[in-house]
């Protein structure tokens, strides 16, 4: 059973539908016990970093995530959920993230030509740079649906895939049992479902 963390942020309906489509059990929960004992955890997120980080902290779910991570539970962040996995973000200030993966979240506009539109919104190709069980069904140049104005930088060797938008932007990351996608796998058609399927095949202690 995959637990989708409900902390009042994100489109949980689509995530649940995606898991149903690939025949995997998933449930939405904000219960600390359920989260700590999940087979795997999905951390969603849409909106502002500071707001989401605050909600994770005050709900006590941050500690549940740390405890699950320590037990080796596979954890995947999606979109803002991925950004929360990093050390800190500079979205409207400077805010601490969960610190699972080294790196920080910066405005895309710092890295791309001025004539490109922000947010980076739409379908873009994945450039797989490192093999990983999460990408076992993913082909190089598979398309994914992105919607974001901030991106992960200085991620050292945790980057698994990038996408090109005036610069190489971080698309998929992983460090040990914690991983994340900047794009929305639940909105990326077949290629997104393949990533969710690969995630659902991961078991505690695999990574």
């Amino acid at each position, binding site marked *: 059973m995959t637990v989708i963390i409900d902390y009042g942020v994100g489109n949980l309906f689509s995530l649940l539908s995606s898991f149903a489509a690939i025949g995997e059990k998933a449930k939405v929960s904000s219960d600390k016990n359920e989260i700590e004992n999940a087979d795997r955890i999905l951390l969603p997120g849409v909106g502002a970093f500071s707001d989401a980080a605050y909600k994770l902290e005050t709900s006590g779910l941050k500690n549940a995530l740390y405890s699950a991570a320590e037990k080796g539970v596979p954890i995947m962040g999606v979109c803002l959920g991925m950004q929360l996995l990093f050390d800190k973000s500079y979205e409207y200030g400077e805010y601490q993230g969960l610190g699972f993966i080294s790196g920080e979240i910066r405005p895309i506009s710092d890295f791309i030509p001025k004539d490109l539109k922000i947010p980076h919104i*739409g*379908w*873009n190709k994945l450039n797989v740079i490192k093999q990983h069980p999460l990408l076992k069904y993913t082909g190089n140049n598979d398309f994914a649906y992105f919607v974001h104005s901030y991106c992960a930088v200085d991620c050292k060797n945790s980057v698994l895939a990038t996408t090109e938008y005036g610069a190489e932007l971080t698309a998929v990351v992983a460090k040990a049992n914690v991983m994340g996608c900047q794009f929305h796998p639940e909105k990326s058609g077949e290629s997104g479902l393949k990533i969710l399927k690969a995630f659902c095949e991961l078991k505690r202690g695999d990574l």
Partner: protein
Amino acid sequence: MITKRIIPCLDVKDGRVVKGINFTGLKEISSPVELAKYYSENGADELVFYDITASSDGRKIFTDILCETAKNVFIPLTVGGGINSLDDFDRVLKCGADKVSVNSGALKNPDLIGSAAKLYGNQCVVLSVDIKRVNGVFTVFAKGGRENTGLDAIEWIKRGVDDGAGEIVVNSIDTDGVKNGFDIPMLKAVCDAVNVPVIASGGAGKVDDFITLFKTLPKVDAGLAASVFHFGEIKIKDLKIQMQENGICVRL
């Protein structure tokens, strides 16, 4: 690089998909659930669901159908029609919409875009505008194109983007249903005025219309159409293959 998006639009009334020609004379097509699943699996990059029912009973049928549709659709889903308040945003987002398109609701309540963008993020708020030339001026029309608001369309769109609209749908009443190509001059005026994604709507009749659109106006991000897709006059896969052959970046 990001691809140009092809978006079928499903006008939904009483639980069925319809398409008006010049906004009148509705003709029934098919089940929205089936049509959406078909498009999602056959190359559409995104779907727009437009609720054209007026009654509250119709609203309920629409949201039920929307939930059923969203369960089978794994591409972005934009919902519009009858969006007048934050409660309306909440209602359709809970049924699986990713973005919400506002039109007349923003004209009635100019604070709607700003408050929705603040609550759900700019990426969630799409400003859809029905535009017609009046004495040579691009003018905003309300109520499905029936009522002249007297507003300058370019000023209205600029204001919407300043308030937080993350995308603009430009629907040309002058070219809608005519199937003789998109309204290039109107779209150019919008693209020159804002720096958020612009979605062209109204006038697609053949594959070349899309190619002309993206070749002439590289700043346009997406092309939206209804009947040409619903009636199979244009197959989305064929369209995208021809776009690619013409050097336009697409998802295939």
